[in-house]
């Protein structure tokens, strides 16, 4: 199991477009992927779940990966957050 803490950097926050990118990427891995924000947990492979997060710019998310390819999944998704979903900062 791997835990990562990330910050939302892009200006518009985790709105529909980055949420879709995130969910699609996460779904490529076998590992479970849980996102929690302020103690509230959702499945990171579910778009409707990610939509409920209301994660705006500057908010912190805790990512939890668990499964056979958790290392790869964590690296790929961490990178997505690091580059701010290729969106304006």
């Amino acid at each position, binding site marked *: 199991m791997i835990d990562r803490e990330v910050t939302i950097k892009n*200006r518009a926050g985790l709105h529909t477009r980055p949420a879709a990118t995130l969910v699609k990427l996460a779904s490529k891995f076998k590992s479970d992927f849980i996102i929690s924000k302020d103690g509230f947990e959702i499945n990171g492979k579910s778009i409707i779940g990610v939509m*409920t997060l209301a994660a705006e710019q500057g908010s912190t998310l805790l990512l939890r990966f668990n499964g056979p390819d958790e290392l790869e999944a964590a690296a790929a998704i961490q990178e997505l957050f690091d580059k701010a979903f290729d969106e304006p900062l």
Partner: protein
Amino acid sequence: MSPGEHERKQEEAVFRGIAASPGIAVGPAYLFQKHVPVINQKTVEPEGVEPEILRLRSALDRSRRELSKIYDFAKQKLGEHQAKIFEAQVMILDDSVLFDSIDGRIRAERKNVEFIVHDEIEKYRKVMVDASDEYTRERALDVEDVRNRILRNLQEEKLISKLEGAPVIVSQSLAAADALILSRNTILAYVTEIGGVTSHSALLARALKIPSVVGLRHLMANVRNGDRIAVDGYGGIVVLNPSPETVDEILRKRERYKEFEEKLAGLRDLPAETPDGRRVELTANVELAEELEFIKIQGADGIGLYRSESLLLGGEVFPNEEEQYAEYKVFADTMYPKRVVIRTFDIGGDKIMGSQTTRESNPFLGWRGIRVMLDRPELFLEQVRAILRASERKNISVMFPMISNIKELRKARQLVEDAKGQLRARGLAYDEKIRIGIMIEVPAAAVIVEDLAKEVDFVSIGTNDLIQYLLAVDRGNDVVSDLYQEFHPAVVRFLRRIIDRSKECDIPVAMCGEMAGDPLATILLLGLGLDEFSVVPAALPEIKKIIRSVKYRDAKKIAKKALSLVTEDELKKYLTDVMKGYELGVE
């Protein structure tokens, strides 16, 4: 008509609302109601479980097909950017985590699929409704819409998109998606209980040239399907069960308007010039690129106000420099060589900060317009660069909203210079002498207009806000909205001051508020010396006709007399009498 309906008393009833899209129509009412599913919880036998899941699969398929049709139609009618409002719904239908857990619950709890779908999606919706940011709360509506779509398809009820005959759509409110999908039929008119002139559906009605009246309170309770209904989209009036005399009258009005409009169409290529040679600019206020064709047909001298914040409507992200540039370039190229005034984003702080903003107790006096943009210079620079790049053909001007002191103006101008420098460094072309103007909508700006005027190329009076601030009246507040008076002597005298002081500095004065498009105000504004009238596109021909009918010399006298009157009633009566004297208007 069924026999029972014959017996029902058909009394004429008049409803007054807000004219949202011009035109006149008489026809049968069609009550459009959003499908609100009724959900009963039932237990399913073990052998009934798999058929329930199959039922869900086919309902999802049907929902997908519906949404993809709506999405395509939206792209065609509204463009790619606006169509994105439907993207979230499409994706939810493919959420395998959601539907795996729904399948799992149907198997484990052996409840009917309607109940489980409703219950499971409701959990997410509730969280979103309670979110602190507006964006997430708006998405809750998407979630609700997609849930209702699935439930409707589970109950095998059809999406109402095909209508018999040509009805008048009567609705409590109308989402843009509904107005859009219904417009595939022949629609005579849209009338709704709520909604404003600037709502998405009103905008859409104008783009589709369908008459519309909004804000008709208590209408739904009085109308039944098939009732005859007359709609006057000029006057904002709806008549239910009109008497033959009323129908005659309203159809005559339509004829008069038609003749009037045909006559006005002859004005298209003529300048907005008084008989004694005073030429003013007559331009249009615009929100969407889709309106550009209409504006050209109406013969505008250019665009006096492009509300760039309309780019943010329905969109999720702030468009970046490239996206903005693409949009502004469409305006510049379509209107070339005519001018386009782009107003920088006039938005409240919540648009960019979401829940991080503390809720303002008085947003009208709060963080909005240029105040927001100066606090977020990176956003402002991005927009200004996009505007500058679109100015390459030298027909673009830039305008700042909500300026209340000279420091804000200087700061904004400095940022324009910074943006120019950034573009030079990138080797990109722009208009070095781009004209810079400001809105005069805060009374303080009107008071110091002689100082502001020395540092800008033009000013444009935003009457809607100016009047609200000057008279301390929120026009959206029903209790006091009758105190919102365009012809309050204080307003008229304030306008004179703004116009006189600006002209002393040799800069042109425009007006882009609603008052500029009010025919009753035209002669007065002309006489006060206004140089440019920027109006809603539909008002262009009528305002032009008035300008071409009245000598500037006489308009000045009329304005002088108007300035001496002490109540709004006197002013309005005087101006109405003046109009009659010129035989202007169709009434």
